[in-house]
């Protein structure tokens, strides 16, 4: 885990890809893509069904660890239309002690009222204490932005022609992009500039790999 400060507020970067916002007691999670495994299976691509359960285990683990007041999903919570995994999600929301909210992403096509029925409020964007929460990365001058969507990753290079690709938290001056939380998602490799801060996730730990 890695603690960082943004605009005098405290945040913890968790190796699961979640961020805990201490001052708000809020857990930020991006791109879980629930339902993706089942969606694939429904269309005849036999992804192991057990892969679907791990997302919930991971969600439970990280919420138990931080015991937040609110869990805020930064979009692409559900990959597809309604399917069996919704039932598991329902159970998880019921089990979860925190309030759950969703910032809608491009994959979130499940009607809002179904979320509202579970007590999950859905927003297009959220302004909170001078921070701007969205699904798509949005560069604003006056506010710091938290987002997902990209599934950021980076490449590392070492002597002896060594290369590594790792998922990461990607922070520029005014925004932070979260890695994808879901286990059946990919990553998109970014090439940072020198001013950017990069926190890579390596074997259950978070490392700052940039100079900043």
């Amino acid at each position, binding site marked *: 885990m890695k603690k960082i400060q943004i605009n005098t507020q405290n945040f913890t970067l968790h190796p699961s890809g979640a961020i805990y916002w201490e001052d708000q007691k809020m857990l930020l999670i991006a791109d879980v893509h629930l339902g993706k495994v089942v969606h694939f299976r429904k269309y005849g691509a036999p992804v192991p*069904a057990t892969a679907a359960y791990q997302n919930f285990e991971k969600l439970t683990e990280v919420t138990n660890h931080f015991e937040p007041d609110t869990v805020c999903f930064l979009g692409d919570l559900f990959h597809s239309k309604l399917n069996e995994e919704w039932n598991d999600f329902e159970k998880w929301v019921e089990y979860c002690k925190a309030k759950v909210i969703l910032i809608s992403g491009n994959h979130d096509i499940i009607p809002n009222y179904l979320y509202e029925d579970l007590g999950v409020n859905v927003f297009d964007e959220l302004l909170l204490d001078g921070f701007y929460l969205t699904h798509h990365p949005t560069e604003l001058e006056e506010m710091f932005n938290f987002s997902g969507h990209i599934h950021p990753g980076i490449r590392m290079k070492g002597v002896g022609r060594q290369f590594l690709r790792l998922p990461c938290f990607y922070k520029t001056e005014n925004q932070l992009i979260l890695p994808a939380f879901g286990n059946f998602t990919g990553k998109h490799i970014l090439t940072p500039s020198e001013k950017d801060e990069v926190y890579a996730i390596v*074997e259950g730990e978070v490392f700052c790999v940039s100079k900043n």
Partner: protein
Amino acid sequence: MKQSELISIAEDWFQSKEWKSFPFQKQTWKAFLEGKHGLLNAPTGSGKTYALWIPIVLQYLKENPDYKTKHRKGIKAIWITPLRALSVEIQQAAQRFADDLGTGMTIGIRTGDTSQSDRAKQKRQMPDLLITTPESLMLLLASKGYDKTFKTLTAIVVDEWHELLGSKRGVQMELALSRLKTVSPKLRIWGISATIGNLEEAQDVLLGMDPEFRKNSVLIKAKQKSKIEVRSIIPKKMETFPWRGHLGIHLLEEIVPIIKASKTTIIFTNTRGQCEIWFQKLLEKHPEFAGELAMHHGSIAKDTRLWVEQAIRNESLLAVVATSSLDLGVDFAPVETVIQIGGPKGVAKFLQRAGRSNHRPGEASVIYFLPTHALELLEASALKRAVKEEVVEDRTPYLLSFDVLIQYLVTLAVSEGFFATEIFPEIKNTFCFQGITEEQWNWCLNFITLGSQSLQAYDEYKKVEVTPEGLFKVESRRIAMMHRLSIGTIVSDSMMLVKYVSGGFIGTIEEWFISKMKPGDTFVFAGRTLELVRLRQMQAQVRKSNKRTRNIVSFMGGRLPLSSQMSKILREEMQSEADHKRNTPELKALSHIFDRQERESIVPGENEFLIETFKTREGYHSIFYPFEGRFVHEAMSSLLAYRISLLSPITFSLAYNDYGFELLSDQFLDIQTILDNNLFSEEYLYDDLQKSLNATELARRKFRDIAVISGMVFQGYPNKFIKTKHLQSNSQLLFDVFRDYEPNNLLYLQAYRETFEHQLEEGRLRLALERINKQEIIWKQCQKATPFSFPIITDRLREKLSSEKLADRIKRMTLLLEK
């Protein structure tokens, strides 16, 4: 009609053309008319089409004596060709005979290029002979009523069987044949193959395991020994000839007089990228060739390819720069000269290319060999010997390719549906699946119906359903359509169409190449300079550009490994060098490189195994020289790296070529520890190799085509844009998911098995290790890179292996930043 009468019909026809039939043709006619199956071993341009098409027609005459007045409908024969390009040639030859005899028989082509309306016409009324590819035959099995359509078949001919044999398309063929044997009771199965080392096995694979088919079959060999003369192009100034590289452009001027001196020349390159570059450079340096120089490779639009082929026949071209797309089939009489650029890596391929030139009887075919770097001259010297000694390679057939089986089962479920009890014996009778167990079979059935091995609560998996009667059937139209689209997918990188903005198709290129470009960027493709205008739905829209650019389109893959036969000869050539014999012109030309190698290290002799180590800015290099060919080096490097990594945490980057391999690390590697710990041991070879496979990415890469073939990754189709974004995943992701959640999945395991059997060639590796253990190991600590090491250490295609913790490694690494 009696057999002799039928045969005299054919003989008369030959006479009317002022041709004479060859003994192998007559033999084949007789065998066919006697109802036999078989394999015909005959080279390209030998009249093999008439060897098999004629008896098919004669059989029809025999069964229909009133053939001149009444044409009996229904398909008589299928002719399978691995390359679409060959179908026109076969059609013309076949039609000529059918027409001259007044049979009224029709010949149709059905490939990926066939229009929708032609397909529909064929469906209503099949031609008498259908020329098609393995994929298109599969698609026919995926359409309703195929069993009735094929009932009248009397023959299936699989042309260029040696090309299919060592590939999964060969397995596709085996499965299709297993079905046709049942639905077409009068079927004769024939294959045509060029000379390979395992012809008998090729025949067995074609006919399957049923003793009846095997007993009733023949192997006919055409006796046609053509002489081949190999001439190497030796650079005049060896001192400036590069140590590495693969293009060979610096010798461009050497081939100009050869081109000018002969009627038509084919210049064979090894990759499409190399082909593009040679074409471009030839025109740049010799504008006088404009209009008389053409290019031919698999990614160029079909119309252009056909035009080039026709132009060769018309003798309107001086030279064609080509890839393996011109290796097979089509017979080009006017071709006088063949030039091979770079090592062809296999004797068979080289012979086939040489055979494209000069068909005048009695005269030798001449092939020029142009080396792309110094050490390739050694290969030239080895090739000459191989040709002289008539060395031929084997093609290894695939075994238990569950991905192809799963694709096939869904194919049957899409059309008529199938009963497991009926299909299992058919499958078991194929060569590929002779060893399938009942358990594996049930696994496959579960896989297509449940998507796993046990029924899970509320699972929505949907593909093949089972009716109460036990019929396996695909009910969903969407799944049926997706399956049909994926049958033809030749596994390759995502391909994009290149089209002019104004319309007009130029060809296909790999997506990774175009994805590096922005609109306005220019690149050279199909001999034209093009500007990218926009990307739209798997299409790159371009316009012509007058800008000069160095950005020539390139393609991944296509690196061919040296066959074991070639590597043995190569090793022997090298070892004769250690004794300073220098008895061929190629070896003489290489003198100064050998001298330099000896100054800085040694040229290893027959009983010596050379290891070189040196340090550069890149890290610590350790180079090993088994001279066993790329595949063995690939296996041996990961085996050795794995064994070293057990001694202490270390990270390697591995590179290999046909001569040797490199272990590169950021830590010093003491070769003495390798020797002291006996790391070249043959003991526990299988185990260690298996574990090293887990540590590298080899199996992961093999998994890619398995995932596509078995329908786990839907790629869409190049020219049909379908909204499938939400169903796109990549095989890498799937590989990880299987590793984590379903490691006993047969398809996941198949990736390892295939890497083992087809890539790493455990058997060859064992022999190589045995040899090394008998040799004297010579460790040279060099000051800098040696001539032998140079091509290896500069190779960028690398494998990695590490026993260090990632967290430790990244501390010594730096982030790749924007430049």
